[in-house]
């Protein structure tokens, strides 16, 4: 006869769930409010979402304090794992979301924002990402990943256009395949180690000196395929431009930041212990993956005639650049990863918001896509301030000092050099130079060409105060990053180092 199980409530450490629960409660309350009284204005939901995100952030900051004092916090039979990188990445996720959600307050009406479900799904998605990063349990990661992904597919489809449906279906189908890969990879790992916790898997593997190296590598092949999809590494990147083009510019910007940081964190947990154990295969594969992703997507970005597609390819390239941090795997490089992504989120969200601001409802005659380069030509004459802002974001993306991303790039390249990856550092620098070309192309269009009649009416058609505020915040973050870099680095290093990465 089995004894009844007694679980002391204290041992559960329910507090570790708090940040995600806040997001979920937020989502549920949005649904309930809608049930109680339908037809409320979207600004109410935006405010509710913002409020809960703020609470979420507060909880995370609180956890940050506890972490720095007591170290990693475990909860729920060690399923929840609140270490430094979990807290850091959740902060990036929540801040990125807080920057994104006010973009719903456009001055024109859009289909998706009429549904309160949009905001509920959004909050569910955030909770999903938070679960994904705050655990090293393979099953929990999977659940978080799927929760977030399913919500995301729907968010894309809600942008009521045939291209959006196409994008959502594509993303969904490929996502399903990637989820399959992930499940398969996890299964193999479980088969050889008998555990679903990454740190235990690592211990067991180390104990038997990687006897089952073949299976480890096979599982890693599946895992790379799964996370290669999420991080859009070549050749698993094919969905990116289509999906970005199909989704609204704001959501595309969001997708280039938040899901990726979550995937980066899992990739860090999953791959780095192997890289450290000297599994040469993984090092080689990651090396090839990083270089090919960076370079190929850069070249593809060169040939794009649509700004949004260009930005899509360029964010693939940025992801490849940052993936190098996982390959290098030192504390410095992991710190660089978070620094880069924090700075990148401001700049990239700003750039995509600029596209969002001039989203048209209908294409004009002879226009091939939503945001062709021609749309921006001579913008400095018609909308000088907007052109300057866009130019600023482009310069930052290109890594021109003293704007935000320059410091991230410098720090990452520096970490590559100090770990002996000189060739990699060279390739990274070279790629930054290539990337400069297509970012400057947009600047050339904006500042040196004559305006094309017909487009000017769209330049600011979506602009509302809240959109302008977001652009302003992004711009401030990009310009004054110079002064924030050092304190930011200190904090990030503290968190990353104390988590053992």
């Amino acid at each position, binding site marked *: 006869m*089995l*004894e*009844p*199980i*007694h*679980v002391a409530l204290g041992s559960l450490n329910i507090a570790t769930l708090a940040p995600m629960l806040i997001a979920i409660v937020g989502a*549920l309350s949005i*649904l*309930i409010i809608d*049930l109680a009284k339908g037809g409320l204005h979207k600004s109410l939901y935006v405010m509710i979402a913002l409020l809960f995100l703020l609470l979420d952030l507060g909880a995370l900051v609180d956890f940050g304090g506890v972490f720095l004092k007591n170290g990693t916090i475990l909860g729920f039979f060690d399923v929840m794992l609140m270490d430094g990188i979990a807290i850091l990445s959740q902060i990036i996720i929540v801040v990125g979301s807080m920057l994104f959600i006010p973009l719903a307050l456009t001055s024109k009406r859009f289909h998706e924002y009429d549904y309160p479900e949009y905001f509920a799904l959004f909050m569910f998605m955030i909770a999903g990402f938070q679960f994904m990063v705050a655990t090293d349990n393979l099953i929990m990661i999977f659940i978080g990943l799927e929760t977030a992904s399913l919500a995301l597919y729907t968010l894309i489809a809600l942008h009521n256009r045939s291209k959006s449906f196409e994008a959502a279906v594509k993303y969904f189908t490929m996502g399903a395949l990637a989820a399959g890969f992930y499940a398969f990879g996890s*299964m*193999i790992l*479980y*088969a*050889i*180690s*008998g555990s679903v916790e990454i740190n235990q898997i690592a211990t067991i593997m180390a104990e038997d000196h990687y*006897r*089952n190296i*073949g*299976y480890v590598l096979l599982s890693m092949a599946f895992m790379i395929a799964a996370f290669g999809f999420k991080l859009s590494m070549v050749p698993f990147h094919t969905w990116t431009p289509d999906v970005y083009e199909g989704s609204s510019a704001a959501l595309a910007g969001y997708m280039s930041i938040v899901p990726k940081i979550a995937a980066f964190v899992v990739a860090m947990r999953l791959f780095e212990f192997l890289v450290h154990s000297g599994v040469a295969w993984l090092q080689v594969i990651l090396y090839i993956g990083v270089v090919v992703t960076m370079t190929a997507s850069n070249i593809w970005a060169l040939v794009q005639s649509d700004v949004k597609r260009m930005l899509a390819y360029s964010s693939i390239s940025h992801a490849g650049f940052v993936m190098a941090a996982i390959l290098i795997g030192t504390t410095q490089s992991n710190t660089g990863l978070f620094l880069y992504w924090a700075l990148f989120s401001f700049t990239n969200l700003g750039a995509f918001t600029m596209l969002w601001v001039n989203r048209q409802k209908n294409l004009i005659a002879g226009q091939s896509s939503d945001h062709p380069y021609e749309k921006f030509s001579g913008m400095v004459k018609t909308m000088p301030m907007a052109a300057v802002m866009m130019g600023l974001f482009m310069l930052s993306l290109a890594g021109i000092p003293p704007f935000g991303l320059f410091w991230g790039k410098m720090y990452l390249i520096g970490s590559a050099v100090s770990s002996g990856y000189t060739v990699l550092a060279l390739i990274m620098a070279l790629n930054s130079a290539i990337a400069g070309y297509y970012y400057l192309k947009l600047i050339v269009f904006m500042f040196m060409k004559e305006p094309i009649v017909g487009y000017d009416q769209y330049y600011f058609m979506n602009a509302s105060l809240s959109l302008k505020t977001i652009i302003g915040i992004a711009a401030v973050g990009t310009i004054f990053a110079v002064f924030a870099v050092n304190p930011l680095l200190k904090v990030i290093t503290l968190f990353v180092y104390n988590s053992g990465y």
Partner: protein
Amino acid sequence: MEHYNVANPYFGVFVLFVLTFGAFYATTVIARLASRALAAKDTEKIKLTVYECGPEVTKQPNRISTQFYLFALLFLLFDVEIVFMFPWAIDFKLLGWFGFAEMMMFILLLAIGFVYAWKKGALEWHNIK
């Protein structure tokens, strides 16, 4: 391959899984090849239309309502929850208060979903015509 001394009891399952996977894939490939080789090449119009779970799309006077799929989805959702409740009910005493609280939580969430679906009118049959 003595080198791979896989001690785990699940190893057998894994091998079977892989074999099944391979066999499944092989079957579909063979079936496709075989049917391509054997089938009579008819160029009937209806053959080229979309496949739609039995009904003939082109001859159908009215389309199948999406309600049908919504119902199917909801049914599946609430049906699957039972899968969790059965083992819980069997081990109810063993799990104690903790188990009870967890299940209540689960049911609460489910109930919110149910109310949501209800209120949104997902359970009513809308006649399209």
